[in-house]
Structure formats: structure tokens, C-alpha cells
């Protein structure tokens, strides 16, 4: 088996879905012949036909509504938003309908759909192409939000999202689309949707992150280890609901916790985790819960994006504060 990238794993998962379920359709802007602007849907139209892999007109609210209608009627739509920065025109459809249809009809209608969107900075893209606003969706009950950080998790979580009977927003860390390779068997096996992954174990510190920031977080953990600080590293993966059990298990052990994400700090998902710790693990906390995040500014254009995103150095600087706290 050859090792594949995260985006290839996403492609593989969609191909699996298309192959095994005639009710599955993939659509969005440029996903057809062009295979998506990042090639996530590369060759899918060729292999599964124009009826099943469809270029839509340029309208995100329409793409979302289209998916909702299809899902309610029994299809399994996988819809792509070209960039997370362009999901906002669809906000109303996602928040007012996708997330609410099951509850609104007391279970009569539902929305088994997947909304995919590449998100995050670091690829030198123009304005609005580097957003990380997962927190906006994590505040919407009825919606699941999932972010993979490795090829294997991308494959398994996308299949899980596809199998799930409820709407899932699947955000893809485009900065690492091609950064890592893994062997990912095309076995159709889904990973659980509402579980975090403990990807490194240590007794001194809990580091929580997701998506592309897992790279810097893991590097920081390694550096810390060289300094004698051993970290639990958690890939949150399921941004909503949050797997607090895994987090609490770790933090009640380590007593120290840092959360790393690219989104702005205020209102970011890190706030939720920290707040839960302040409520449910206060007595275990031996140091302030520190969030290393994007600043509370607009994501800057590419010339400053590196300064905006949490770097290994920034994580380590904060880690020092956390570890020295007594």
C-alpha cells in the first residue's frame, strides 16, 4: 500500500462513498471536471459520472439548501464549500434548516449530509481564503463539527460523517493537505464521530489542539519532552460535541492544560474547553489554563499570516509559564 496525503484520503473516502451508495452525490463549485480547486474531488466525476459529481452554480446558500433538500428526500449529499471564508452566504441555511430540521419535525425529517470546506491559514492565499471560524458552528446545536489532522483520521472521520444520520460540517486543514503521508487502507471503516484522540501520553501537561495546529502542538510536545516535560496531546477532532471525558481524564491527571488553535481567541473553541475545566476540574488545576491562539484580529493577509498563527515558539513560551506556575 502506498502512503497517501490527507487530501488523497479525503478523495478516497468520497470515492468509497460514491462507489458503495448510489444515493451519494458530491457537488459544489468546480468539483466536477476540475476536481476541486485543491483536487479533493479529483477524478471523481470521471469515475462516477456527471450525474453524481456535479458542478453547481456559484451560490453557497443554494449549495447548502440543495443538500438539505436532497438529504431530507433520502439522498446522501456531500457538498463542498470552496473555502471556509465563503461559507457565510450559506449560514442561514445551515443554522436555520440543516441543524434544526430533525428537531423541528420531531424526527420526521432529517438531514444526513456532509458539508466539506477547507479552512485555515498558511498557504499564502488571498484574503478570505484562510479563515478558521469553526467556533461559529460549534455554537449551533444540532450540527456536528469535525476536523481531521492526519490522512487516516481524514478518511475515517469523513466516512463517519457520511454515515451519520445528522448534518456534519467537515473542516479540512488545507495547510496540511499534502504535508503528511500515511498508509490508509480503503476499507470503508469509519472512526467514531464524537471522540477525541489521545495521540501522545505524558503526565505533566495536557496539550489540546486540532487540525493543522496539531503539527506545531506535537513539535512543541517533543521539545518539551527534551526538557523533561511529558505531555498528553489530544487531537480534539470532534469540535462539536466536545469529548470532555477524554479531556477531563487527562487534565485531572496532569493538572496543567494548554489549548492551541488558529482561530481568534475570543469566542474560540478553546474558551469552551477552558470554561468546562474551570467548572468541572477546578480542584485539579495546578496552573492557569492557557490558550495559544490567533489574535483577536482579522486573519491578516499572507504577509503577516505566520505571525498570526500559533508557532512552536509561541506554544513553548506559554508552556514555560504554565510549567513554572506553582
Amino acid at each position, binding site marked *: 500500500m502506498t502512503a497517501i496525503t490527507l487530501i488523497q484520503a479525503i478523495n478516497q473516502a468520497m470515492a468509497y462513498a460514491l462507489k458503495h451508495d448510489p444515493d451519494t452525490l458530491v457537488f459544489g463549485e468546480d468539483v466536477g471536471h476540475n476536481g476541486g480547486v485543491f483536487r479533493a474531488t479529483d477524478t471523481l466525476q470521471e469515475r462516477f459520472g456527471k450525474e453524481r459529481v456535479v458542478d*453547481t452554480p456559484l451560490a453557497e*446558500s443554494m449549495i447548502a*439548501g440543495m443538500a438539505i433538500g436532497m438529504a431530507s428526500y433520502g439522498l446522501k449529499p456531500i457538498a463542498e464549500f470552496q473555502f471556509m471564508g465563503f461559507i457565510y452566504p450559506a449560514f442561514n*441555511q445551515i443554522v436555520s434548516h440543516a441543524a434544526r430540521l430533525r*428537531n423541528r419535525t*420531531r424526527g420526521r425529517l432529517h438531514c444526513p449530509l456532509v458539508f466539506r470546506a477547507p479552512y485555515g491559514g498558511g498557504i499564502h492565499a488571498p484574503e478570505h481564503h484562510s479563515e478558521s471560524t469553526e467556533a461559529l458552528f460549534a455554537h449551533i446545536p444540532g450540527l456536528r463539527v469535525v476536523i481531521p489532522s492526519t490522512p487516516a483520521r481524514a478518511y475515517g472521520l469523513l466516512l463517519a460523517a457520511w454515515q451519520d444520520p445528522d448534518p456534519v460540517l467537515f473542516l479540512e486543514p488545507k495547510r496540511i493537505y499534502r504535508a503528511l503521508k500515511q498508509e490508509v487502507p480503503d476499507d470503508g471503516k469509519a472512526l467514531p464521530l464524537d471522540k477525541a484522540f489521545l495521540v501522545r501520553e505524558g503526565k505533566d501537561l495536557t496539550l489540546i489542539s486540532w487540525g493543522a495546529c496539531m503539527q506545531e502542538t506535537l513539535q512543541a510536545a517533543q521539545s518539551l519532552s527534551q526538557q523533561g516535560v511529558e505531555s498528553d496531546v489530544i487531537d480534539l477532532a470532534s469540535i462539536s460535541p466536545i469529548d*470532555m471525558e477524554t479531556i477531563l481524564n487527562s487534565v485531572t491527571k496532569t493538572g496543567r492544560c494548554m489549548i492551541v488553535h488558529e482561530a481568534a481567541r475570543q469566542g474560540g473553541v478553546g474558551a469552551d474547553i477552558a470554561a468546562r475545566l474551570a467548572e468541572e476540574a477546578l480542584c485539579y488545576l495546578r496552573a492557569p489554563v492557557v490558550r495559544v491562539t490567533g489574535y483577536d484580529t482579522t486573519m491578516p493577509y499572507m504577509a503577516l499570516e505566520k505571525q498570526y498563527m500559533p508557532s512552536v515558539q509561541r506554544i513553548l513560551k506559554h508552556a514555560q509559564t504554565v510549567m513554572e506556575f506553582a
Partner: protein
Amino acid sequence: MITSAPYQFSELAQFHVHRLQFMNEQSELTQALPAFATDETLLELYRLMCFTRSGDEKAVNLQRTGQCGTYPASTGQEAISTGIGHAMADSDVFCPYYRDQGTLLQRGVRWEDIYTYWGGDEAGNLIPEAVNTHDFPVSVPIASQFQYAAGIAFAMAYRGESNAVVATGGEGSTSEGDFHEALNLAGTHQLPLVVVINNNQWAISVPRDSQTSSQTIAQKGIAAGVDCLQVDGNDVIAVREAVALALEKARSKGGPTLIEALSYRLCDHTTADDFSRYADEAHLKAAKEHEPIARMRRYLTEHHQWNDDKENALLSDLNSHVQEAAQTYLNRSKPKIDDMFNHMYAHLPKELEEQRELAKEGY
């Protein structure tokens, strides 16, 4: 016009917007009736319009007496929803807005469901007797329904089915982008979608002329390359036939249609509104003379021996039906705190299970 400049302009395209009517405001036939319009059917349409009005009146009454929430009646516009419902097949899917009671009643939605919904309980959307379980509940966010309606139509086309989707909205909804995006998708993929706009000439207090400067609402289909038509929305026969034609076309892969049904709102926007604050008295008076129920009653009286006795019998029958529905609604058990959680997800996340338990304990 920009083409009044002294240059040669070549003509690229031409569009015509037409109107369909069978019975005018004097209850005179303006052309031969379509085949469906047998005596029996006309009586049935009349009954359905009256049923709609009875149920609306009861709802307003329930609201006024504190037994129901805000309610949008459809007084004066019963021909539109009645005509739509009558034209639809069970296998078609309906994506309503909030002023479609006349259609809902023909889709298996009972008055007690309607009251339950507007009474503030999601269970009103369960519709145990639905003729098609894919029918959507009312869409409250204006114009958003057109998008998922197009999605359903896409699914039908994908599956090669020969049914269609009907989605409705008010003329105000045509100002929202969602309306145009959905029509454009339907046009591009020639989807089996029929959009009916209830042009009641008001969006709450905003008159139609402050809503758009387009000469007709129907012509908005031209932007999307979608076939369009205006019908006399107070002529239930015209509405019924136009929707039937559009559905037939849609089912036979002829693509989408936009229908403007021109009528007039003869009631408050909802029970939370006060029409008298902004009503145009002259318009309102004129509009009352065009309203669909009186128009049909006059016709039936003149041509089908309708009379006061029959009228009274019908109304009292409808009324007792509606009373019963109201009573059923009032007797329903109220939703419980669990209901808030139980349908959020197919598999309630552990986190929410815990919250549900805490909520039940009063936390």
C-alpha cells in the same frame, strides 16, 4: 432606457409575461373552463376555501383568547393555497411558507396539527396523516424554502422520478437572494420545481411598490431563464389550472415554472400585526370586492343552485369540524423538557444526555 441613445442596437432576446384567468371579479367566465372544473370539483374547491377561512378564524380566535401563539391567517387568499393543493399529486412534495393552510389541509395536515404548531409545539410538524411524509413544515425564515425545494427537485430528477416539488412564498420573499438562487439552479438543471408566489401586495406593512420596481412578480423568472406566468390569484380555477399545467410540464422534464398569483391580503399580517395602522382604505375596499370566496359563491349561486341553506349547512359543518380540531389541540398533553433534547440528534451525544438529566432535575 439606455437604448434610447442614437445608436443601432441589435435585439438579442424578447420575453413576454402572460396572465391566466377563467373567472373575473364579477364571477363571469372569461373563457371556457378547463376540463377539471366539473360541478363537483367547483363545489369541492369552494368547500376547501371555506374550510380554510373557518380554520383561520378559529386560530385567530384561539390566539385572541390566549390559547394559541401568533398566527398568520390567509383571509382573501384562500384561492391560492386551495388551488395549489388541489393541483398537486400525493407523490409531489410541498414546501410551504406560513400562509398555505388551504394547501396543507389537502396534504393531510389537520387543523389540530396547525394549531399545535402555532400553539408553540414542534409536534405540530409530525403530521401523522401526511399524504407525503417528505412534505416540509412551514418555513419561517423568508425565502429559505426555495433552496431546499430545489434540492428535493434535484433529488427527484436524479432518481428519475416523475413527480415534482411545489414551493410557495409571498411577493416579499422575491426580494431575498435565496429566491433567485433557487430559481437559477432549477433553470440550469431543468428541475421539476414549481414556485408559486402569493402576491398579496403587502409584506407586513411594506406595500408591493416599495418591495420592487418590477412590473410583475412573474417576470422575475426571466433572470433565471425560467418560464413564468401570472394568474388571477382570486380565481381558484386559474390557480388550480396554472399549477396543474406547471406540474405536468415539470413531471415531463419540461423544467421549472414561476407562477405569480395576484391577490390581496384582507387581514392583519399575523395576529401580532395591526393592519389598520397602515392599510390603504381605498385599495382594501376594492380588494374586498375581488375576494375569491364571494366570487365563487356568486358563481355557484348563479349556475349551480347554491343558496343560503346550503351555505349555512356547509359553514356549520366546517365550523363544527374546526371546533373539534381546536378541542383536540387544547386537550393535547403539553411537551415536556425531554422533548427539547430528544430530537436534536439521531444519537444523542453523551454530553447532551447529561444535560437532559440535569435539566430534569431543575439545573
